[in-house]
């Protein structure tokens, strides 16, 4: 995929739909295309979040390391959705390890550059933050559902 392909994918992403043209341009200038093969690690749990990404194609898994149980996938991120939101939230450390499970195309924004742009440009910040927040909120809601363990084996097979 060439640069125009990246730009095309960027502009087609639901994540930026509705942004003002100037804001889009500002973001597009920061966007870098990244391709990951299955198993490639995009972010490491607890390490500084180096970038915020939008999945364009493929799928990445958010994994947590659990002592004694290995690496547990808690969520997969599908095309159109973001990963690395902690790039925008102090202390800017990744809350999970992000691993490609398929060949994945993503657009990524360097964390430092993105934060600088948002600091500078209140309009961009006002447009972008709610988008990230919505993504995080949906994730939180889904996490609660998972917490409920609705398929739980609360089976009283003894009496």
């Amino acid at each position, binding site marked *: 995929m060439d640069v125009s392909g990246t730009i095309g994918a960027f502009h087609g992403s639901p994540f930026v739909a509705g942004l003002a043209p100037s804001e889009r341009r500002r973001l597009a200038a920061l966007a870098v295309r990244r391709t990951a093969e299955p198993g490639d690690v995009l972010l490491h749990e607890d390490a500084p979040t180096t970038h915020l990404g939008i999945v364009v194609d493929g799928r990445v898994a*958010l994994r947590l390391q659990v002592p004694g*149980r290995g690496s*547990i996938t808690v*969520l*997969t991120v599908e095309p*159109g959705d973001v990963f690395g939101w902690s790039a925008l939230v102090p202390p800017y450390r990744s809350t999970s390890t992000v691993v490609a499970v398929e060949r994945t195309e993503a657009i990524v924004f360097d964390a430092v550059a993105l934060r600088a742009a948002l600091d500078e440009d209140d309009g961009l910040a006002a447009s972008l933050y709610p988008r990230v927040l919505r993504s995080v909120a949906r994730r939180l809601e889904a996490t609660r*559902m998972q917490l409920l363990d609705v398929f739980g084996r609360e089976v009283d097979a003894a009496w």
Partner: protein
Amino acid sequence: MVTAAPPSFLPRAGLDRLIALLRDDGRRVIGPTVVDGAVAYEEIASTADLPLGWSDEQSPGRYRLVESPGPGRERAFGYTVGPASWKRYTFPPRVDIGRGRDADGTVTYEPVAPEPDALAFLGVRGCELAALRIQDRVLRDGPVADPDYVARRRAALVIAVECTVAASTCFCTSMGTGPEIARESADLVLTELDDGYLLRSGTDDGRRLEARLDPRPATDDEVAHARASVADVRRRIGDPVAVQGLPGRLQARLDHPRWAEIAERCLGCANCTLVCPTCFCTSVTQRSDLDSRDSVAVRGWDSCFSGDFAKVAGGSFRWRRQDRYRQWLTHKFSTWVDQFGAFGCVGCGRCVTWCPVGIDVREELAVIAPPAARRPLPMAAAAAPGDFTPARVERTWPETPDTTTLLLTDVDPAIAHGAPGQFVMVTRPGLPAVPISVSRYHPEGDAIELSIRAAGPATATLSSLAPGTPLGVRGPLGRGWPLEAAEGRDVIVVSGGIGLSPLRPAIDALLEDRPRYGTVRLYHGARTPNDRPHKDDLATWAARPDVEAGETVDRAGTGWTGPVGVVTHLFDAGRWDARDAVAFVCGPERMMQATVSTLEDRGLRPERIHVSMERHMECGIGLCGHCQLGRFFVCRDGPVFSRAELGDAFILEGV
């Protein structure tokens, strides 16, 4: 219409002749008598057994027998109603309803045919006659008649008595059940006067009986006096409950704060339901020998107030007292009307008197339900259950760590030709009958598949049956998935965990007749990759070019490369238009609620979203009462419902 004969007059002494005549006819006469400080209905031999000279004082939570005031007022019917009702005789507290036996590898089931004694009920009041009529509607005249009830009811002659006294807890006037009694509503109707009884007969049996008593015609004075006493009762009771529009008003107040306040007083003891002459909720339990080859199914009175009543795998869905009280009150005064076309309450006041803490329905209704509009009646699909028929376990295989599929063969052809989403009752001698949705039909081989989650001992036992084991199966039961509503439309099938099993026959049908439908989208969510049932089918469906399939798990190790997240996560990625689609959804309640809400957000109309409430099923007939969900009996009216039909019952806690 035959012109009714004028009332006749039977002197006081004639009552003994009446009892003697009935006994001569071979009937056991059941009438009022004083037992343990209250009027009970027991077998009587003569008027000496009647509560002569006794009256009762009743108020919420209090009952006392008192001697009637004034000399010469030795009335036999000077009390109102005691704690016991005629239900004890028409719908006894415990009856054997079926026997199962496993002999030499053959299982047999036979219903127990009741052989009731010929009875005569003496002293049935207006409210109690109404209760018998309601029981007739529920247990005799509905889509499924209860053979035990029908036989017992037929065996009883009814001699009614108009009330000339009222307790403070009576409200028959509001419910339209008394105190006056129309002559045609009983075989014989008495109205007690100081020196005898006014007599009216309403049936041929009653007329013959009246003739044998040889009464003289009543005088105009006597008739007027009788009318006046009954009218006086009506005046004293007044009209304490505003029934006009009550069902709808109650349904609109399912979230009223008063429910929680009542729960602070309510003991949840079930006394109200057990003294109620119309409550018919039961539980069937198995009584088996220690060798468990023979077992008897026993049906006993149960109550929506008891802890086990609303229990499903994983807990009780009406675990709070407020849920149970609301269930009871709304059933009596609202959903009963939807189900049976009449109130479930006759205004006898027993639930008020016999509530140990004196909760008064009249007061609670007045607080909770001010006037509002009526709701439409729901549909009620009738299941016509046959008896248990034998089948055999051909083989079994594990689906998930806790779920096993049984392939049953030699199944009754009617069952093997059942519809997607229907269920069967399955049992073995010694085991309770368990409702299980059919997870695949093999009509050509008279076979079905049942996928059973070992949620308790009985299902664990069923799961571990060896090939060759005989079983009893009854069905097909219930209303399944409305495939006809999906014709020409896109179909979205969303399943969670073992909720895929009841949907599998629907998917089979969709794919077998693929051109009839638009885009078919299948989404399945499971707890972990290991907990996915029907894995081969999931793979086959995903590989079909004419199906869009997506799968997700709640959590996974590194071996799973598919999506992880709740099932609605799968829709987030898709950009399809749902407005013209039909959705079939089955899974845990919270998963269904989240799915339905996401689908509604996408523009799907509630009428086109169908959910299976199969977890609520119990007896497979819809008469034991366990499966009530708002206006519905899930076993009878469901288990599949549209979101629109369920209304608040789908989302409110504890309905």
